[in-house]
């Protein structure tokens, strides 16, 4: 496929924005300035970036407990996200949700929430609505390998396939579900085969390669718009940090249940660094451009933290503000 420079640089900027956003949270978490549970997306940036690059602003996405990347890639604002994580009134969920409950309806981020597999069926609903209204909007459901344990995934796949709904099921297979390696959760590793039993297009891609993800997503979105959906895409990836918080290593000792050797191997497949190399090797960007982009984004992020810190907390008197029954 041929890509414009602008498109490639955009992908890069999005990936760097996600990575630097996630890394910027490490210190505030350790200092307990951020208190809500935070599931960092480091290492998985290429998936959100590649999928969302294939969507238009009017398409819908749903996410999980680990959705900062989905939110940013779909156009959610850094200020809204970071303020939410600090529990501030200016956050995207007005401080009521924290890191695990984020939303930006104007950008098609219809909600990310931490009940595993809890939002998958909701994507059926937005797809149904689009079909009834003949809007050709695509709905994406992001979920982890852990979610393949929940029955609702299979109910949703069946119904989506039956009604040819424009849903893109994106499974982020990072081989772990909290403390459980995938071999203790599933009889096999080939998650994409789940889709095949519903006679739908099912793909497996390198989730650390943003262009490979994009190309699969592009194909899937096209199928959905032509009433040939749904589509299932398994993106193989790895988280470079802990399940929750910066890492699972307590008191400086290696308590992450994942083998150190494995983590080291995956560091070599860092999606952001690899894409950077791709851009440099193909003379799309020069070292100076990279530095400039990173500097620019670092500033955006710093501003967002400042904005968040200077923002007010929700008023105690407004505890009941959004409740109606």
């Amino acid at each position, binding site marked *: 496929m041929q890509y414009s420079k602008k498109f490639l640089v955009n992908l890069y900027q999005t990936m760097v924005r996600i990575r630097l956003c996630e890394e910027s949270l490490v210190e505030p978490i350790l200092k307990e300035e951020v208190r809500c*549970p935070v599931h960092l997306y480091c290492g998985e940036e290429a998936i959100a970036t590649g999928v969302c690059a294939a969507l238009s602003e009017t398409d819908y996405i749903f996410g999980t407990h680990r959705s900062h990347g989905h939110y940013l890639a779909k156009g959610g604002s850094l200020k809204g996200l970071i303020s939410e994580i600090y529990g501030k009134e200016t956050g995207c969920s007005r*401080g009521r949700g924290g890191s695990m409950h984020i939303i930006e309806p104007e950008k098609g981020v219809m909600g990310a929430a931490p009940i595993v597999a809890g939002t998958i069926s909701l994507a059926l609903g937005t797809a149904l609505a689009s079909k009834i209204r003949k809007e050709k909007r695509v709905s994406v459901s992001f979920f982890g390998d*852990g979610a393949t*344990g929940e029955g609702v995934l299979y109910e949703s796949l069946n119904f989506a396939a039956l009604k040819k709904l424009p849903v893109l099921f994106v499974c982020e297979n990072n081989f772990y579900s909290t403390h459980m390696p995938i071999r203790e959760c599933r009889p096999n590793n080939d998650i994409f085969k789940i889709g095949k039993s519903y006679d739908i297009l099912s793909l497996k891609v390198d989730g650390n390669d943003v262009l490979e993800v994009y190309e699969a997503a592009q194909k899937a979105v096209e199928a959905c718009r032509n009433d040939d959906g749904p589509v299932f895409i398994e993106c193989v990836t790895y988280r470079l940090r802990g399940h929750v918080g910066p890492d699972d290593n307590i008191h400086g000792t290696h308590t992450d249940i994942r083998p150190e050797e494995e983590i080291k191997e995956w560091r070599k497949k860092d999606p952001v660094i690899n894409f950077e190399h791709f851009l440099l090797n193909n003379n799309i960007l020069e070292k100076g451009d990279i530095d400039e982009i990173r500097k620019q984004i670092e500033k955006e992020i710093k501003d967002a933290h400042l904005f968040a810190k200077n923002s007010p907390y*929700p008023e105690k008197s407004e*505890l009941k503000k959004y409740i109606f029954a």
Partner: protein
Amino acid sequence: MRQLSFSLAINEALHQMMSSDESVFLIGQGVKSPWYVGNTARGLFEKFGPERVIDTPVSENAITGAAVGAALVGMRPIVVHPRMDFMMYAMDPIVNEAANWHYMFGGRSSVPVVIWGIINRGGEQAAQHSQALHSLFAHIPGLKVVMPSTPYDAKGLMISAIRDDNPVIYIDDRWLYKIEGDVPEQIYSVPIGKGIVRKRGKDVTLVSASYMVVESMKASELLRKEGIDVEVIDLRSIKPIDELLIFESVKKTGRLVIADAGWKTYGMAAEIAAIVAENIFDELKSPIQRVTLPDVPAPASSALEMVYYPNATHIVQAIKKLLSGKEAPWRIKSVS
């Protein structure tokens, strides 16, 4: 007596019951990792192996159903939900199947399963990771619901729940896990359906369960300094509920405050208020007060969490309000 923390008291119950009864097994998420269930499952995996300590994929519905099915053929499974919010996926096997089974088959089969749900709130975890849903289960005929507040009861009620021939929902609160208390080393049981008076008093009856007992004891201590003598009842089981214990106390004090970590509307506190009003209304000197969560989902921001969770201060306020009120209108005899 030997001291043990609340979570290790549960752990000991599991060790002893699994050792003494081969039909007992533990299944659920996190049973081989301290991540989810604290140290309640410590050493179990190592001792009893993966056949009887089964860490599972994220499949609450199927796993709970599996526990119910195993119980049908005489096993005594304990299925743990490290956060009771996750139990919502398991509502069918719990509510439609386990709870109804004995009755709908005319008593020909029973389900000796323990469904253990942990309340895990605070820490800005917000709406989907903070819920105290005990009242939901207590509403269902065919489910017993126990909620210990002390290490002694945590162990004794777990043992009773395992021995019970019918489904028991065992609910504990992570906020209790570090509390230390007397725990006998042997196997013993605490009867399901029996509450206990934690502190004798004559001015007002304060009824609570689980973590709210801790706040209730704090409140009674604060009020003691002001000369108000509170009787604290720890329900231990919210279903069946120890009505007689509550009635006896209210007959003595004439006043009732209920403290509950769940929501107000249609909740545990509402039920207790109802049974007292229904049965011994004439004994009340003043209206009943409820100290509960407001009817709002859990917020994330700690600024809101601070005003969300009920505590001793709220209980003190409620009791003072009740005591400062005029004599209940229904008790003022009209003079003709």
